[in-house]
């Protein structure tokens, strides 16, 4: 009984980790720009596939591959901002939805062209037997995923709270005009938010691929789940996306395990609708009007 529950719990925490990272990626960009970046899922796919490319195709050392993958993802974020966001004068909500969807389609096209339609994976980060926790069989990679997600959460917290540039980004999110008037270059903050967000997404992709494989078209589903996580926690709230991501992951896994695996993908959407009906500012949101802004 408990064993089965633990098994489902860990598998939920694993996918939940990725949802949380995608959700945080949404928030990073939303806070700096009020843009909902629907290409967020592609950043994860870029992470998984580029990691395969560097480590299994080019046979570069593990750490080098990780660094290069994160850098490539950062470059994708940078290009996206430079080519599609910066040249546009208006950041109208609907326009941005169309633009970011277009970017996601283009990215998928490039990935399909380069990698084809096969699923990819590479070896787990550490070799060795699965662990036995309370009777549940846990792959080592599961712990890597959860640990790396935890590390990302801590690093993002330190970035936003301890560095001046992070504080400046928060200031932009609170009051763009006032931020400009103390000399903060807002368009630079926007650029950084895209780079950072792409890197966070890619880290999720790097960690999860040995467990769940990666295909060129995994992005949209990941974006939907991550978006639900961000909305559930209150759009723009870092901790919210973490709680949202893990909750959705665990509920999905329990639904698939105890009810039917076909219902799994409906869970996030049901949660999304419930949150929007009952508490539109998200579970951590207090003042709906202030937080939801354009959305």
């Amino acid at each position, binding site marked *: 009984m408990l064993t089965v529950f633990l098994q489902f719990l860990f598998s939920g925490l694993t996918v939940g980790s990725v949802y949380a990272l995608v959700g945080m990626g949404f928030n990073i960009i939303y806070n700096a720009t009020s843009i909902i970046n629907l290409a967020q899922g592609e950043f994860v796919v870029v992470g998984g596939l580029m990691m395969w490319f560097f480590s299994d195709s080019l046979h570069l050392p593990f750490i080098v591959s990780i660094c290069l993958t994160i850098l490539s993802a950062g470059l994708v974020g940078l290009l996206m901002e430079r080519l599609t966001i910066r040249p546009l004068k208006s950041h109208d909500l609907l326009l941005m939805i169309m633009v970011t969807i277009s970017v996601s389609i283009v990215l998928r096209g490039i990935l399909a062209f380069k990698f084809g339609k096969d699923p990819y994976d590479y070896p787990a980060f550490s070799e060795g037997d699965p662990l036995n926790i309370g009777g549940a069989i846990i792959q080592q990679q599961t712990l890597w995923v959860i640990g790396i997600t935890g590390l990302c959460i801590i690093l993002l917290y330190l*970035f936003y709270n*301890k*560095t*001046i*540039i*992070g*504080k*400046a980004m*928060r*200031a932009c999110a*609170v*009051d763009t*005009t*006032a*931020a*400009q*008037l*103390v*000399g*903060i*270059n*807002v368009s630079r903050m926007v650029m*950084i938010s895209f*780079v*950072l967000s792409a890197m966070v997404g890619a880290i999720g992709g790097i960690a999860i691929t040995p467990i769940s494989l990666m295909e060129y078209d995994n992005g949209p589903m990941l974006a939907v789940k991550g978006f639900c996580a961000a909305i559930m926690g209150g759009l723009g709230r870092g901790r919210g996306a973490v709680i949202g991501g893990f909750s959705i992951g665990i509920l999905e896994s329990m639904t698939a395990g105890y009810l039917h695996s076909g219902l799994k993908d409906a869970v996030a959407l049901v949660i999304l609708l419930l949150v929007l009906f009952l508490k539109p500012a998200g579970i951590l949101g207090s003042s709906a009007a202030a937080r939801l802004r354009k959305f």
Partner: protein
Amino acid sequence: MLAINTIGKSFGGLIALNNVSFRVDGGSISALIGPNGAGKTTLLNIISGIFPPDIGKISFSGTTISDLPATKIARAGISRTFQQVELFGDMTVLENVMVGRYSRTRSGFISSGLRLPFVRKEERETRDRSLGILDYIGLRSRKDELASNLPLGEQRILEIGRALATEPGLLLLDEPAAGLNIRETRSLGEMIVRLRNEKKITILLVEHDMDLVMRISDRIAVLNFGEVIADGTPLEVQKNQAVISAYLGTEE
């Protein structure tokens, strides 16, 4: 120091500023007064680059700034406070001041991420200087409080502190005494004078409190319906017939 030349601005059909010219001398405390809706805030918005004027030119220390974006104007040494306080509410008092110092730091995204030694040093310096500013404005004991939790009087002082952090040569204050009691207004006046005397910051003050304005200003410009109707020393302005009727006319 600041030369405002024939500035005009309208919003739709409404003419908010019409042919406005005056100068703010370096080292002075200059005041801009006028009834509500006269266009004072609009002029400060134009000086600080929130929007450009329709016509006219503003120069600061010899260079034209009226075509620059707000960020560049701030970096050129003009800082301001707002009539409606615009602090970073869910950041602490200290963080608000530290963010003000951002434009005076060099740490980039990558160097911050790598925690290079110069970044650490710079962050320590930023913190120390920001604490120094809090000492100066008397808010050090409140440093870890959220800005939005301060009473209005302290929020206005903190906004001045954040502006000071950018190391301005010219400070624009938009009704800093609004909502303050008599005691707070008096210490605000003393602080403004100290900023000019000790920190050599030129002040352009928009204010309704005539006691305060008359007591500390070197020069006063009076705006009415978007036009400058008087410009001179406090004594000259007080005796000016156009000013008297403008104020009586609007029952201020």
